[in-house]
Structure formats: structure tokens, C-alpha cells
């Protein structure tokens, strides 16, 4: 490996870091809000809501992410909905990650002891109040590991946005090696940047877990 090529490649690739982080942050935010809604719908006693949520999970967990991105970028313009490459990628990534986050959130909620709901009910609290104040805060502790695992996967999967022409890190890396035919160094730099980013997420997980640990 030639270290001067590594040093040359780094700034060129790093220019795409903003796009990578942007794709990740938007998709995680939208996907989590949507995932929470889907999780609550799936747990709802109203049948149409739980059916919708079950269908949502089934659909977006069952289709390859790349195909969702193709739909958002190539197919939607055909029906008159033209999105920029960046927002098309955010749309596909959001729907895809929402389906997984919904399962992480739902598993956290159902893992909270049934006695907590009963105690809330017996005190006359509304269901939405007990969800917000009693159940969800306790479920966060449980859902943090699968949630972070999904987030880490999402961060890495933003690299697929390359294929719908978003100039994020992976696309910029390909540009380098299609210019100078050096593969080892640019790919090494790219891998190290992804690794650094996912490391930050995993450290974040430890901090959140510590914050929500039950005091004994």
C-alpha cells in the first residue's frame, strides 16, 4: 500500500462525508418516527391499523433496498414525482429502515412487564399517558441494542446511494479509481471512514444504555 496515495485519496473521499452523514441522519430521523408510528399501529387493538403496519413491515423488509432506491429514483419520475438523487435515496432508505426500527421499537415495548400497564390502568391513567411516561421510557433501555444495530446497518447501506448517483463517499471513491486505477488505497480509506463512523454509533449506544440504566 502506498501511503502517499492514501493521503491523496483521503480529502477527495472525505468531501462525500457530508452527503453520507446527511443521508444517514435524515433517513434515521424519518425512519425512526415512521417506525414508532408503525410499531404503535402494530400494537393497536384497531384491526385496520395493525393490518396496515403488518403489511408495511412485510413489504419493506421483503424487498431489496437497492430496488427501493431504484423505485424512488427511476420509477417515481415516470408517475410525475421527480426527486433529486439525494431525496430519492432518503425516501428509499427511510422506508426500509422504518420497517426494521418498527420491529426494534415494538419488541422493546412488549418486553416491558405487563404489570406496568396494569398499574397505570389501575391508577386511572389514559393509555397514551402510560405509553409516553411509563412504557416507552422503560422500553428504550431494551430497544437500544437492536436500534443501534439497525442504525449501523443503515449507515453502511447509504453506500448504495452511489447507484442512484448521490455523490457520497462511495461514489467519490469509485471516481478515484476509475481515474488512476489504484484500488487498494482508496478502498482502504473508505473502509476506515465507515469504521470510524460506526464506532461513534456504538459508543453512543454505550452512553445511552448507561443513561437509561435502572438505578439499583
Amino acid at each position: 500500500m502506498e501511503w502517499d496515495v492514501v493521503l491523496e485519496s483521503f480529502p477527495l473521499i472525505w468531501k462525500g462525508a457530508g452527503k453520507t452523514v446527511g443521508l444517514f441522519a435524515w433517513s434515521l430521523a424519518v425512519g425512526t418516527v415512521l417506525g414508532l408510528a408503525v410499531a404503535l399501529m402494530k400494537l393497536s387493538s384497531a384491526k385496520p391499523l395493525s393490518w396496515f403496519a403488518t403489511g408495511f413491515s412485510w413489504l419493506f423488509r421483503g424487498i431489496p433496498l437497492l430496488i427501493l432506491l431504484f423505485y424512488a429514483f427511476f420509477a417515481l419520475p415516470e408517475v410525475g414525482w421527480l426527486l433529486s438523487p439525494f431525496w430519492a435515496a432518503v425516501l428509499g432508505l427511510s422506508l426500509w429502515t422504518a420497517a426494521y426500527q418498527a420491529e426494534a421499537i415494538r419488541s422493546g415495548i412488549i418486553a416491558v412487564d405487563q404489570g406496568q400497564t396494569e398499574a397505570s390502568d389501575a391508577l386511572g391513567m389514559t393509555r397514551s399517558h402510560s405509553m409516553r411516561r411509563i412504557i416507552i421510557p422503560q422500553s428504550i433501555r431494551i430497544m437500544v441494542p437492536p436500534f443501534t444495530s439497525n442504525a449501523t446497518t443503515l449507515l453502511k447501506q447509504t453506500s448504495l446511494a452511489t447507484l442512484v448517483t448521490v455523490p457520497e463517499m462511495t461514489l467519490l471513491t469509485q471516481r478515484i479509481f476509475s481515474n488512476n486505477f489504484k484500488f487498494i488505497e482508496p478502498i482502504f480509506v473508505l473502509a476506515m471512514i465507515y469504521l470510524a463512523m460506526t464506532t461513534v454509533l456504538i459508543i453512543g449506544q454505550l452512553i445511552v444504555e448507561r443513561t437509561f440504566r435502572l438505578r439499583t
Partner: protein
Amino acid sequence: MSSDALVTVSGLHKSFGDVEVLRGIDFEVARGEVVAIIGPSGSGKTTMLRCVNLLERPSAGRIEVDGRVLCEENADGSMRFSDKAEIRAIREHVGMVFQRFNLFPHFTAVENVIEAPMAVRGLSRKDAKARALELLDSVGLAHKADSYPLQLSGGQQQRVAIARALAMDPAFMLFDEVTSAVDPELAGEILLVMKRLAQEGMTMLVVTHEMGFAAEVADRVLFIDHGLIVEEGPAKEVLGKPKHQRTRSFLRAVLERAPMAEEEIDDDEL
């Protein structure tokens, strides 16, 4: 039907799938009365208690609490339940204490006590907290107000749970085997709090295995077995001079830790 009945239950049935747990229960609790419910494991006593605030939905029967009907049967035999808001309004006035405490583990003791008064009754944090500290003091736990549930012993957690229920100023209280999950030497501190509540005139419905408590504190005892009330009456009579063979067998099993006679169980099932 006496006019001062606070709780009136009639024709109560409850099935879980094919299993009929309650098979027609009728009883009343008068204002200020302490009623103990005793019976073997699986007899339906906990289910019966949980029906009173609709934590379990009866399959049939009528329940009235403080003049409000929680559920009753329509003419065609189907069940009609009060709407959600009405059920919440009734539950506000029915305190419940659980076998496994069910404190909110992410809240301190005082936060556990103030949550419902603030959320349900709209008390300010300041007022709720002042009242909560009084209540924690009354159960001997003022010094543990800022502790988290998992930092407390079982006996202390259960006393916080009682304070939490009392913070809603309930008209009456349900106790579901509240000493069963704590070490035997800690049961006394819970029973002491309950005894004092009874003396202060609180109406209480108590599912318990503590025969000493039932004998000393309860006005009336219901013995329930296989989903039916087998015997009921003043505590002295039911516990001292039980009329039914099943009651005698049960009391012997509890007091002498002897197994219940098998042939009697068989007889009952025939």
C-alpha cells in the same frame, strides 16, 4: 341489597378460553368494611379481585362500584361495559396494590406517588409532592422518598405502592396477595400499614394467605374454591368454626402446612 353497599357484584362469571375460572359469584362490600378473600391456589380469588376494577373483563355478571355500573348483561346475554372514560373515572377511586408491587422502576419513590395525581387529577407538582411526602411518611418511608424501587426491599416497595394508591384518595382499595412476594419477616410491616388503614375506616377487599391478618382485621371472610364462594361470614366464624369440609381442609392445609386431602378435591370435581 343494603343501601350502603360500596361494591356490588352479582352473577360474576369469567372464562379464559375453555377454562371457567369464576362460576357465578355474588357479594357486596359495605362502606368501611374490610373483606378478606381466602381460598386455594387457582380458586379464582385473584381473578375475582381483578374483575372489580375491570383489569379482567367478566364473561358475565354485573359490577357496581360507588353507584356506578362498570358492566352488566344486556337482555340478550351479551356484556355491556362502561366506556373508557367512565372506567377510568371509576378506577381513579379504586386503589389497587399488586402482589409484585408494579412500581415504576425508572421513577423514584416520590415520583411513583405523584405521577397519577398530576396526570389524572391535575394536581400541581408542588401539591402532589407535599401530599406524597405525607403519605410516604405515614408508611414509614419519608427517608426513602428519593430512592429508586430497586434500591428498596420488597416490604418497602410494597409500602410505596400502597402510598401510590392512597395518593388518589380512593374510596376503597383492592389488595392482591400483597405479602406473597416479600420475605416473611417483611410481611409484618406491610400488614401493619394495612391494619392502620382499616382502623381509619378504609373500605378494603383483600385477597390474602395471611390468616392471622384476616382473623384480626377483616370484618368478613369469603372462602372461594373452584370459582364459587363456598362459605362466607364474620371472620371469627369462617376461620374459627368453618361449616364446610372444604373450608376446614383448606384452613388445616394453610395453618398446619399439611397437604389438602386429595379425596376431597376429587369429591368436589364430581
